[in-house]
């Protein structure tokens, strides 16, 4: 087995992985990035609508700042997020976007003077100020008080990923494409790299590294209907889980996006609604104001998705031969706007639905979209359990999203986390703990174990079809662990997944083609995906409350008294049938924003006694400092800057704000 040595191994070539790689490389460490596909084809390229950063340049964003972005994100998370991390994030997001602007992303800009917009179904004219002309503009997104999603037409992720990849090429960072990490090499609580399979030749290699970073994106493909790329199968999270040491956080927190096109599940961006698009039912009635009089179509995604399903359940869906759906109406935005700002949406409608959204309605229904959960890390992005293992981006549970992520906060997280984690990794490599210390016997042992696992599948005389097991898993998740969850059905899901897991030990292959062998790939992935699916289903079963995207019909209230805690899942041994769940408390007494009503969705929740106490403290501290600037007030409530790398601690400059 070939062994490749490097300082830093980044598993994942999306936005998060490449930004972390650039950070570590700038600090003088050798970095290799692994990716299943050419880096520019990573799923980050598919992000359409925007990246949140509180620049406050355009009229709709005027007065925005980190404080408002912080409050929106915490409310969006339904108080499930780590508030210190949210502060680190909202503070760094403007820096991230400005860095990308200098690196080449062609962000859309503010144009001075009058223009027409669509708000709440009405056209109106606004006038952008002279001072903002040429600065980065932003659009409205759900669950936010300001227009904060900065964008490049509706190809934001594409533009960001190309710029990021090009900078990584400029920095001479090798990306080993079509390489799949199959297992982490670790011993005594220390990670040493990964065993990797070449997806062109089928060969196994070992990458030995001082620091290993998982940036493998989401795992939407455990569901049948998902907006995710088909490579989003969660192998990064799975190999962390299989160490039995590292933990996965909040796996039950799965986001469903309101507007997947029906039935294919391909996304059309939230920007459609942000720019003024409406949701209509079978009578072409705009129903969201009936449920959410304040935020309407722009409540957070968990709320809108539930309202849509509720409305379909009440008999107002549009019937089609594939099942029921609702309509997204962007006709009112006009041809000009659609042709310039929503062109991917237009192409998708044209190619996959054969319709023109300038003139016709778009059939939509909520689809799995985002995994809030992932490899649990501390503030700086390191696994608390497995030293030398780091994670960033959608694959991580750094925990700035809690139980629901806001649109535009994910690509922002990838870059911000990449900046922070890249530094953390460099610090680690510079420290004595980061020295390379392992025996080649250990590497051989892990390599041999993976070789055996593959041989068992390839040579076993099993009768189960990997494709069939994957299909059954996806059906189970979509039918029973979806938007509306309920105890009995979750129990059934857990049982079905256990059965599938047993059957997955009995997979037989029809093909023994040399090289990658796509059937073998499906087989070893489905074994691992079933473990992730089980973490989601079992976590959802145990969490007897409703919070953010996790909705239990049999426990419809958020329960701060019992559930102000984050789920941690670990997989105890290779033949375990269930994950072991433990819980990490979220301390209300340390929160800058104690739990309350989100401003949309259900008003009713079970309060924790600490909430009142902490609220009084917060009010008293704020009251005592009413003459101080907002940074001083914030610092008094919940200091966070010390958690950031030093070069990211300064205030952000803004139009009309003294810094």
């Amino acid at each position, binding site marked *: 087995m070939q062994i490749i040595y490097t300082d830093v191994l980044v598993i994942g070539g999306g936005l998060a992985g490449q930004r972390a790689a650039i950070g570590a490389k700038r600090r003088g460490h050798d970095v290799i990035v692994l990716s299943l596909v050419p880096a520019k084809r990573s799923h980050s390229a598919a992000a359409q609508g925007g990246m949140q950063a509180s620049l406050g340049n355009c009229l709709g964003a005027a007065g925005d700042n980190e404080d408002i972005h912080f409050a929106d994100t915490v409310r969006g998370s339904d108080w499930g997020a780590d508030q210190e991390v949210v502060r680190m994030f909202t503070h760094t997001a403007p820096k991230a976007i400005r860095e990308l602007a200098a690196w080449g992303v062609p962000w*859309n800009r503010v144009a001075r003077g009058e223009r027409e917009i669509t708000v709440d179904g009405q056209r109106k004219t606004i006038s952008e100020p002279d001072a903002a002309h040429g600065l980065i503009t932003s659009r409205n997104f759900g669950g936010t008080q300001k227009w904060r999603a900065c964008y*490049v037409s509706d190809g934001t992720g594409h533009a960001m990923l190309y710029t990021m990849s090009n900078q990584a090429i400029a920095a001479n960072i090798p990306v080993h494409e079509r390489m799949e990490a199959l297992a982490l090499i670790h011993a005594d609580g220390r990670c040493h790299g990964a065993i990797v399979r070449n997806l062109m030749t089928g060969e196994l290699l070992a990458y030995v590294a001082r620091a290993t970073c998982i940036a493998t994106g989401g795992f939407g493909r455990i569901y049948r209907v998902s907006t995710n790329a088909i490579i989003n199968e969660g192998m990064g999270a799975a190999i962390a889980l299989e160490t039995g040491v590292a933990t996965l956080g909040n796996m039950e927190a799965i986001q469903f996006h309101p507007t997947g096109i029906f039935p294919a599940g391909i996304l059309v961006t939230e920007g459609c609604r942000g720019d003024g698009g409406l949701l209509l039912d079978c009578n072409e009635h705009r129903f969201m104001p009936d449920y959410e009089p304040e935020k309407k179509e722009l409540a957070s995604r968990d709320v809108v998705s539930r309202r849509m399903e509720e409305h379909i359940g009440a008999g107002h869906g549009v019937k089609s031969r594939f099942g029921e759906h609702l309509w997204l109406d962007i006709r009112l935005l006009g041809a000009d706007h659609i042709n310039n700002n929503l062109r991917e949406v237009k192409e998708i409608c044209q190619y996959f639905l054969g319709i023109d959204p300038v003139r016709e309605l778009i059939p939509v229904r909520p689809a799995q979209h985002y995994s809030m959960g992932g490899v649990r890390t501390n503030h700086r992005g390191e696994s608390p359990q497995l030293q030398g293992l780091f994670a960033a981006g959608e694959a991580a549970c750094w925990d700035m999203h809690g139980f629901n992520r806001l649109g535009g906060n994910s690509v922002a997280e990838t870059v911000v986390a990449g900046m922070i984690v890249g530094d953390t990794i460099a610090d680690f490599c510079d420290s004595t703990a980061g020295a390379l210390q392992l025996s080649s016997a250990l590497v051989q042992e892990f390599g041999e174990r993976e070789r055996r696992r593959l041989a068992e599948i390839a040579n076993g005389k099993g009768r189960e079809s990997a494709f069939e097991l994957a299909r059954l898993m996806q059906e189970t998740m979509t039918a029973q662990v979806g938007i509306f969850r309920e105890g009995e059905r979750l129990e059934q899901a857990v049982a079905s997944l256990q059965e599938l897991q047993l059957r997955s030990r009995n997979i037989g292959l029809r093909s023994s083609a040399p090289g990658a062998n796509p059937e073998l790939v499906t087989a070893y992935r489905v074994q691992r995906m079933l473990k992730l699916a089980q973490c989601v289903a079992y976590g959802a079963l145990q969490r007897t409350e409703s919070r953010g995207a996790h909705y239990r019909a049999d426990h419809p209230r958020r329960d701060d008294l019992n559930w102000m805690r984050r789920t941690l899942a670990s997989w105890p041994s290779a033949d375990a049938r269930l994950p072991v769940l433990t819980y990490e408390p979220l301390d209300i007494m340390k929160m800058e924003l104690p739990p309350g009503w989100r401003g949309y969705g259900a008003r009713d929740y079970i309060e924790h006694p600490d909430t009142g106490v902490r609220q009084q403290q917060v009010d008293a501290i704020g009251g005592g400092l009413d003459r101080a600037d907002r940074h001083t007030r914030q610092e008094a409530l919940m200091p966070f800057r010390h958690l950031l790398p030093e070069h990211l601690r300064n205030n952000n400059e803004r139009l009309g704000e003294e810094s």
Partner: protein
Amino acid sequence: MNRIPLRQAARTLRIQILRHNPRDPDSQPRLQTFEIEEADAMTLFIALTEIRERQDPSLQFDFVCRAGICGSCGMIINGRPGLACRTLTRDLPEQITLAPLPAFELIGDLSVNTGKWMRGMSERLETWVHSQNLESLDIDAMEAAMEPELAEQIYELERCIECGCCVAACGTARMREDFVGAVGLNQVTRFRLDPRDERSDAAFYELVGDESGVFGCMTLLGCEDMCPKDLPLATQIAFLRRRMAATT
């Protein structure tokens, strides 16, 4: 006359695929035909996935986003390069022939190594913003302003997804291995347009001022005809050629 359209019986598609597995010493390039029943709104992504799952699990192809965004699934579809994921079978005849994109290294069947080619192109043309102060940026400060129309024009050229269809459709690329293709020339125009990139025309000339660059183009227009993103490739190349000719 009865005007109610009859639901037509589902077609049986005959999909002929050029197969070869270079990892297998016994493999010879050959055409293999699969028959499948067409379904509503079926794309080549759905059809190929079904063939792999039900008929031949060894079939190799590349899909990632399956939404026409990532550029992974370029292949030759009935003689023309295109993105398979957003090609609806209802727009094709019953007999469909699929082959891998030429000009790229074959990985197996319909899978080719566009990633390696594109990385090589990027390294050679240095497709990134060249600027003195990138390492010492002040990211606490306001971003530099840019004219809104200019930002849009840059994005217009940046929409390229590096799928390789233009290279597969290019007469020059088929004859000259070192030709950077419309994809490369388009990227040069993109960075040339970008005021953040400090390179001069002379620097760009160094990169593309020869037969492997802008003077290799024979203006056959295959690139622009086949571009799935409808990029104005031929116009860009002509423009660049004029600029480069003026540089000498």
